[in-house]
């Protein structure tokens, strides 16, 4: 499934946060959305996922949903958003229970995503018993359990320490290699973008406008190869030079809450 954005704008009251944003996330593609903090990345993602009401422009999905898809547009949240009173399996079940799946199919889906995310042994654990990395694996398992057509990930690794982030990036790459889900991945971390995305959409500071759209010319599973490291570093530096001045100004702005 593709996601098409045309001339999307948004304002909170009289604070404009997005202006004329147009781009497309292709079928099976991972697009990273980067930009200085407060530039409207989360706002854009929530518009795409239907959690915020659109104000201007058009957002549409195109194409067919995968077989067995229960929730075409599915989020993975920065703060995991797990129900603390439900076990790991129970949190995944929350996304399935209200669909007419039948008990066996539901159990099978839960078992398979827990397996895929390395959570099988933790099925009965409560979120408070898990590390941040494991909690986000639950968030990812819950998302893939509904076989989404589009995954919307809002800084999914930003609450984790650097080592855990590395581990989860590898997991994500493995999962995407299997599922090929169209993904819009918001981050402020350039390394994550360069490592995970097929295409990087760079936003300016608030109000967010598209500054540049860059594709990453190396297949995701080959990015660790030594012969590509120079090229990717160069891309990283190029992206940083695009953002640096914006980030400096954004950093010195008063906060709007």
């Amino acid at each position, binding site marked *: 499934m593709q996601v098409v954005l045309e001339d999307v704008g948004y304002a909170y009251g009289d604070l404009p946060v997005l202006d004329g944003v147009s781009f497309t996330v292709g079928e099976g593609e991972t697009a990273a959305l980067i930009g200085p903090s407060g530039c409207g990345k989360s706002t854009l993602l929530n518009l795409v*996922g*239907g*959690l915020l009401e659109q104000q201007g422009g058009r957002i549409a999905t195109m194409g067919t949903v995968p077989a067995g898809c*229960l*929730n075409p*547009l*599915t*989020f993975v*949240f920065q*703060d995991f*958003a797990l*129900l*603390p*009173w*439900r076990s790991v399996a129970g949190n995944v079940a*929350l*996304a399935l229970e*209200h669909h007419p799946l039948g008990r066996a199919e539901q159990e099978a889906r839960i078992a398979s995503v827990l397996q895929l995310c390395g959570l099988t042994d933790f099925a009965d654990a*409560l979120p*408070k018993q898990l590390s941040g990395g494991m909690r986000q694996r639950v968030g990812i398992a*819950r998302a893939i359990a*509904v076989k989404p057509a589009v995954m919307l990930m809002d800084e999914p690794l930003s609450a984790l320490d650097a080592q855990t982030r590395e581990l989860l990036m590898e997991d994500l790459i493995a999962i995407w290699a299997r599922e090929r889900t169209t993904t819009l991945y918001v981050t402020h971390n350039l390394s994550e973008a360069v490592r995970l995305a097929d295409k990087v959409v760079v936003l300016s500071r608030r109000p967010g406008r598209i500054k540049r759209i860059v594709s990453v010319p190396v297949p995701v599973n080959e990015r660790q190869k030594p012969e590509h490291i120079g090229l990717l570093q160069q891309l990283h530096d190029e992206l940083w030079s695009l953002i640096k001045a914006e980030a400096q100004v954004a950093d010195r702005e008063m906060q709007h809450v």
Partner: protein
Amino acid sequence: MSDPAKTPVSFRGAGFVPGTRRWAPWLAFALIIACWESASRLGWLPSLFMPAPSEVMNALHALLVDGKLLVHIGASLKRIVSGWILGSIAGVTLGFLMGIFVLARSVGLPVVSALFPIPKIALLPLFILWFGIGEPSKVATIALGVFFPTVVSAFSAVDNVPRNLIRMAQSFGLSTRMIVFKVILPGAMPGILAGFRISTSIALILVVAAEMIGADTGIGAFVLAAGNLMQIDQLIAGVVLLSLLGLTVSALLSVTEKIVLRWR
């Protein structure tokens, strides 16, 4: 540095550590009672006005044996339980409505805030006029006293359920009804149970007050009558019974919290 003299690092992080000594409270209780008992035996306390703990225990024992007290306890419990349940059901329901629906909140919050400060016992005479001197007027007073703090605690418990959990549930396509039962209700449980602690102690206060104003049965009536007859040992026995009742309710709530909030 030219002179590498070694200065040992000294520990300066002592104290200010949270912790408890399990035996300390028991010892304190025992000491207080021992002092009281000795003061009575030495004649420092006039036994007519302040009987010794042993005399109070004797009175309590005698009252329990002849079964008179059980009637009073039963009467008080019936009033507390029915008043508390009525007030709690109404309070939790309105608190939820106010937490979920903007209109209910806009109407409910100012109304509840305006009526909350009324000392509910002051309404007992009115309820007696409406419902007669019997049970309904006492139950209504307790229910009303329980209702207001319950509305407030249920409302803020619902209001404090993290928005991100609700948004998550919406993003997975759960209906409003499902969000209320699967996200808001369990998420508000800690706040609601904390509110029960307050409302049960209010119910206890109100039942005693109501029984002192107009009742033949109940621990409040019993304590008042004992006072009128200068039976101070029985009066204190009644008070001891009330505090035991309060402690029991609090222990029941603790057990409930342990079971219901195991996830915390």
